[in-house]
Structures are given as C-alpha cells and as structure tokens.
C-alpha cells in the first residue's frame, strides 16, 4: 500500500487538476462536508488537522461508510500501525493519521465511475459524525436535503443557509458583497480566464472569457476555498452548490452566413447594480450580452445588443433547454432573430426537468 501511494504521489505531483484544502476540526468534523469533482480528477489534497486529536481521511466505495467504520474498529491492536484503515476492497484511498495541528499533502484520483463516494475519519469513535461525500459526476441535492453529509451540517444548512459561505466572505474583504457580483478566478471545468458571477436568488454562473460564453451555472452557495489567494500552490475555486446547466456544444450564436466562428473578448460593463454585460466580437461584429436569472432557478434571460449588423442571428437550440425569444422564430434546430431585431433582443433559456 505504501509503495502504491508513493507511486501515485510522484505521478500526481506534476499533474493535479485541482487542489483541495480539507481541515479536521474540533467537534469531530471536517470543515467541508461535500465537494463536486468530475470522475478521474487528479486531486492534490492538503489535509490540515486543526484539532487536538488524531484524524485520518479515508475515501470509500459508495454505500460502505458504516461498514468501513466497523471494520476499522475491528482492527483492534493492529489499528495504529495500519492508520486505522481496514485492508478491504471497500477502501479506495486513505491518508495516514495526522497528529494534532499537523498538515500534509496527498494526491489521489477521483474514481472514473460516477458516484457519491463517502470520505470518513476511521479513527475509533470518529466516523459516525466525521464524514462527507465526494460527488463525482452526480448532481448535488440542496445541502439541507443531503443524506450523505452529517446531520448536524444538514440541520445548520436548513436553519441558516450558507452560513459557511457568509463567514468566508466577511473574512476576506473589507465590504459585504451583495449579488450580483463577480470574481475573476481559476474555476473548475472551465478555461483559465474565467469569471464567476453570483446572481441574486442563489444562482451563479461561470463565464469563460476566452470562449465568450457561459460554461455552466449552479445553484446553492457560491464558492469556497477562496483563500486560495494566500498560497503559492496551484489552486482552483470550489463550487458550493449544484450544477444545473452546462453548455459545451458549439457557440450558441451565429451570424447567418458566418459559420466559422471567431471570438474576441472585449470586457464588460457593470449595469443595474452589478450585472456584468459582457462585450465581445463575433466575427468582427460587436456583441453585448447580459444574463439575469429567471425566478425559481428555472433558467435565465439573456439580452443581446449587436451593433452594425445587417444579417439574421441564428441561435442553436439544445435538447435539454427550452430557448425562446419574442423577437425570434423557431426554425428547425435554430431560433432565428431577424436582422432588424438584432440591435437588441432577449432570449429566455429554461432548463428542462429542474
């Protein structure tokens, strides 16, 4: 086991996709109780023990957390030398035991099969409250309904949603942020020039400033681990919510007759109290794009303003989305905005089955 761990860390040292900071805290708990990571993600884990007790972190097969805790207890006197990790196929990966106020770096790879993988401290007596879940390619339910996190955190979430998020914000800036606002920051599942936009109504989206488009949107909290600015390490923000919209297909907007799409990001203007209206050039034509949330997290409205354009605009329809516009007409797999309406038009995007 040691040998394989060593091999893994040497390999991963060069290649971690993301860095995760996880703290063991007083009261037998981890500071983060869940995170979304795509299957196969190579993770650098900075495991920090803030507590006065020993702790480890063990990732186990879906549904086996309680069994692994029992197996760890059954190790008896062999426990300490095995770091309280049972040698069973239920265990996917584990850290060593960290003593009080120790810190260590590890590398692991999220299993390639989508699933909800529990992580737990298997030190005797800790596992019943000290655990959480890695959501690998599976959407997260709202925090207050999540059966894969400890009851205490679930209850906290339902009494005062996103307490954790608020606390992080206050500690980081000399002002309180009220949505809408944005951060330019390294984001998961997106290009390195990304913009995280927080909208009112607990909706956020990730805008890729290279590709001039929304890559995905999520509901729930905003971002955690934003203290990544303090470290000389590769870092990436972590979503504190559930992705409900993703679009990685071809660029949604097309000027009729120009299907070789060329984009150039030009910046943004903050309007109506902080909504970013993004500016870019689409095949040399200046486009402004402003996205606002629809009520009930059903989707968004996006208002486009296009200057000096005399051609119709084609918007590709998507299977999982209902895309409509009062200024346009649906024709086969596209929504067509007539040339004379392209100075300003609004489309509504509703996500099916949400």
């Amino acid at each position, binding site marked *: 086991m040691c040998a394989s761990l060593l091999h893994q860390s040497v390999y991963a040292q060069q290649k971690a996709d993301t860095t995760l900071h996880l703290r063991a805290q007083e009261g037998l708990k981890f500071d983060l109780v869940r995170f979304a990571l795509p299957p196969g993600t190579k993770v650098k884990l900075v495991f920090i023990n803030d507590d006065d007790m020993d702790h480890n972190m063990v990732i186990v097969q879906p549904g086996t957390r309680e069994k692994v805790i029992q197996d760890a207890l059954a190790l008896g006197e062999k426990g300490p030398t095995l770091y309280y990790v049972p040698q069973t196929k239920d265990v996917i990966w584990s850290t060593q035991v960290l003593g009080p106020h120790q810190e260590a770096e590890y590398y692991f790879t999220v299993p390639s099969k989508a699933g909800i993988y529990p992580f737990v401290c298997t030190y005797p007596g800790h596992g019943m409250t000290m655990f959480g879940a890695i959501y690998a390619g599976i959407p997260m339910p709202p925090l207050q309904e999540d059966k894969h996190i400890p009851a205490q955190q679930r209850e906290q979430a339902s009494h005062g949603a996103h307490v954790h998020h608020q606390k992080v914000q206050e500690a*980081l*800036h*000399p002002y309180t942020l009220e949505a809408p606002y944005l951060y*330019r920051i390294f984001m998961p599942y997106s290009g390195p*020039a990304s913009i995280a936009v927080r909208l009112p109504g607990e909706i956020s989206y990730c805008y890729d400033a290279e590709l001039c488009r929304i890559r995905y949107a999520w509901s729930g909290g905003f971002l955690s681990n934003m203290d990544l*600015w303090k470290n*000389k*390490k*590769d870092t990436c923000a972590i979503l504190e919510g559930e992705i409900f919209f993703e679009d990685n297909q071809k660029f949604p907007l097309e000027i009729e007759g120009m299907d070789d799409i060329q984009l150039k*990001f030009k910046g943004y203007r903050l309007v109506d109290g902080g909504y970013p209206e993004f500016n870019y050039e689409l095949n040399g034509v200046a486009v402004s794009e402003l996205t606002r949330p629809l009520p009930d997290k059903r989707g968004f409205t996006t208002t486009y303003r296009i200057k000096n354009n005399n051609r119709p605009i084609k918007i590709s329809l998507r299977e999982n989305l209902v895309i409509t516009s009062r200024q346009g007409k649906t024709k086969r797999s596209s929504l067509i905005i007539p040339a004379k309406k392209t100075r300003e038009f609004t489309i509504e995007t509703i996500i099916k089955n949400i």
Partner: protein
Amino acid sequence: MLKYCLILLPFLTFAQSGSNENPVKPSYEVDNIELPAGLSAQVTALDFMPDGRLVAGFSSGEIMFYHPDTKKWDVFAHGMHEPLGFQVVNNTTVIYIQRPEVTRASDTDGDGKADLFETLTDDFGITGNFHEYNYGPVKDQEGNLFIGLNGGSPGGWIRSEVRGKLDLGGYIPLPKQMFSVVPYRGWIMKLTPEGKLLPFASGFRSPNGLGFDNKGNLYATDNQGDWIGTSPLHHVQEGNFYGHPSSLYWREGWEKGPPGLLPVHELDSMRTKAAILFPHGIIANSPTQPLTDLTEGKFGPFAGQMLVGEMNSPRIVRVLLEEVGGQMQGACLPFLDGHGLRKGNNRLAFDPDGNLWTGQNDHGWAGDKGIQRIRYTGVPPMDILNMNLTPKGFDLEFTEPVDPTIAGNPEEYKIRSYYYEYHSKYGSDQFDVQNIQVTDLQISADGKKVSVTLNQLIPDRVYEFRLENFKSARGTLLANKIICYTLNRLKN
C-alpha cells in the same frame, strides 16, 4: 557554508540609526497606514491618482482608493484576478494587469466605482499554474505598455484547459525548472497603442518588477532560482535574451528543441548580462519593483536614482546605474533598513509630496502585509551618493564630506570580488572569492569624493565594498555600509 555565515553576519545588522556619539534624527521615518477591517492587505499594486489619492490593489482582488487627508478607504473595483500593477490614466481610469489580461477600468457614471472594464489585451497564454504571475504595465514615452509574464513553476502543473497554444516541446521534466509551455511565458511583451501585443525580450524567470530609469530605459528585476545565480536587474532591450532558457522556445524560428538542454556556453553566448546583480543574502533575495526617484529632491539627495523593493528583509534597495562601453551597469546598496519598515516590499510609489509608499505582500513566501509611507525628514543622510567605475578602480561619492582619517586609510576598505555561475541549478554560490587591496586613494578637495585604485579589476565580477567605520567629517556615521558594483565592462 559556515564561512559565509561568519562573513555575512555584520551586514545583517541594521546600523543606520544614530550612534551614541552622534544622536541625530533619522533622515527617513516610516509610518504605518491604517487599513480597513476585513482586508487581507497583500499588496499587489500601488500608485497615485493625479488628485493625490492612493490606489492600491490586493491579492484577493480589491482595487481601493485611500485618501491621505481623510484616511478614508473606498472601493474602486473588486473581484480582480491578482491585479499586479497599475498604469494610472486619469482620476477615473486605471489600467492594470491581472491573470487573464490587461484591463482598463473606468468610472463612467461618476459614482467613484469602476463600471466599465475593457480588455486591452489577452493575447498571451495561461496554463493556470500558480506561478504564472503577470507584471506591469509600465508605459514608455511613445505610449507603449510593457508587461512581464512569469514562467510556470515546477511546484505546480497546468490545468486541463489552458489558453494559448500548449506545446510541451520545450519542456524539460527536471525538478526546479521554471517552464514555458504556452506563449509567451518568460517574456517581456510590448503592447502598442493600437492594441497589438508583441514579444519584446525573453529569458525571464520571475520578473516581479518593471520600471524606467530617468532616461527612459526599461528595466526589470528577476528572482534568484534556476539559471539565475543571484537576483538581477536587467536593462531590457528589444530582441535580447536575459538568461532563463525556457522562454526561448517561443522565439520566432526556434528549431533547437528544449532550450534548457542546450550547452550552457551556447546559452551564455546568447544572453545579455544583468546590469546589476543583487548579491543574495547581502543586498536582496527577492527584489521587486524598480522605481526612479523623480521627486527632484523632495525625497532627499537621491533624485534621479532608482529604488527597488525587497521581499525577504525589511529593506528597500538603491541602484546606481551608469553606461560603460555602451552597456548599463552599476552598483546597488541598501537605501533603508529597518526603522519600522516591514518585509515584503512588493510595490512602491511616490505621492505628489515626494513621500515613498510601499505595499507589502507575502503570498506564502517570506514577506509581510500592509502599506507604509516613508518620509524624508529633511535631515541629510551621510550616505554614498554615487559609485562610478574608473580605469583603475572606482570613484565613491558621498553626500557629505568624509572623515579623511578613515576614508584615507586603505585598511578601512574591506573589498571582495566574486562571480556567480550561470547554470541550471537553483541559485549560485559566490565563486573565486578574492580579497581586493586598495593600492591608491585620492580624496577630492571638497572631501566628498574618494577615488580608489584597486590591485585587481576584472570584468564579469561583483566588487563588494564594506565601509564599516566610515563617517562624515562632522561625525555622522555612514547610513549604509555596503555597496556592490556589478562590473560587466572595464572603462578605458
């Protein structure tokens, strides 16, 4: 190693404060600037607006104004991705660099906050590696902006999505080698007024500081590490290569594979040597922004000279440049040590009254947080004003007449000469350390200039002078007792 420690020990004591025999008010005093609660004051950028407000950028994305009169802080913009340098346009517009781009932020509706953010250029690669910091912009007289692009660190890797053409052809999987796998990491770039971003000079590792001298020459500091024996200050000229090989991969027409695998002598023959070497552990370990004193005397006697921040010690460094044989070279010495100054001096700016402000940062390295102001008290310092190469030695010019009983004694000059190796290894020891003898001394009639003749003067070496006991004719101790001259070319 022990030998070095013993030798270096005296330099690490801060001896500028008045001596017992001569208690005088210091020439420079340091004030702490109060910061708003909740701000993690890791300063990334610092400058002054034409109306006298300080504008400061921070690692966590804030760009804020400080009114020195009311001591009030206001937010100009937030959510920026490590804004590492400003170019103030006017009272409502600031250009800055951040991770993804050069941005022009303007307050167009007059509420004091930026509402329009225009991307001036994003025409360079980013891998997401933590060390790919971007520096600048600084502006030349023709209106070109210059930015510096840090290489990627072997302490991290690249993201699954990168911007720019990913090409691992120049990458060498060796530990401790900064890499450049997207264009143009490790380059200084020129952004023309028309918005075109052009590669300008290569060979940089971590150029955390760009600036001009008082003649309009562009300079950049770099940080000791692989291929950089000790931290340098480079006179940056178009087309030149400054020593760190990774960036060469993006040179037009490059067909030599991984540049870091070329023979060292070949790389050495291509490179332009540093104008100034900051001896590691003696002058600076991590120099930052160069800033020329254009206060015309408001900040004391060093008008026209260049100051450079230092991260690892509570110090600001002073640089004395001269042109010899068509190339810039010169000396560096401490400007201010201690006196309440913190470490981490990452960004410098002069206010309209001629006070020097310094913004501090640590970001996981040695350093500190916060903003301080350095005021000239009007008490002239006894210090080295200038150091110039002569055919046989150096002229040392002082701000006050020297005490001739000390300055006239050759034994009072402790001079060493050494060189730093150009190699792939992280940093360099001092090689061929020699003790140098003074063979002749001339003191000028006004007592302010000493002409020193040495028994040896060899190019490509550092000449380090220690003047421990020097004082003025009136008895004021020399404020800074060590000065290091980077001798690239001899004077005929």
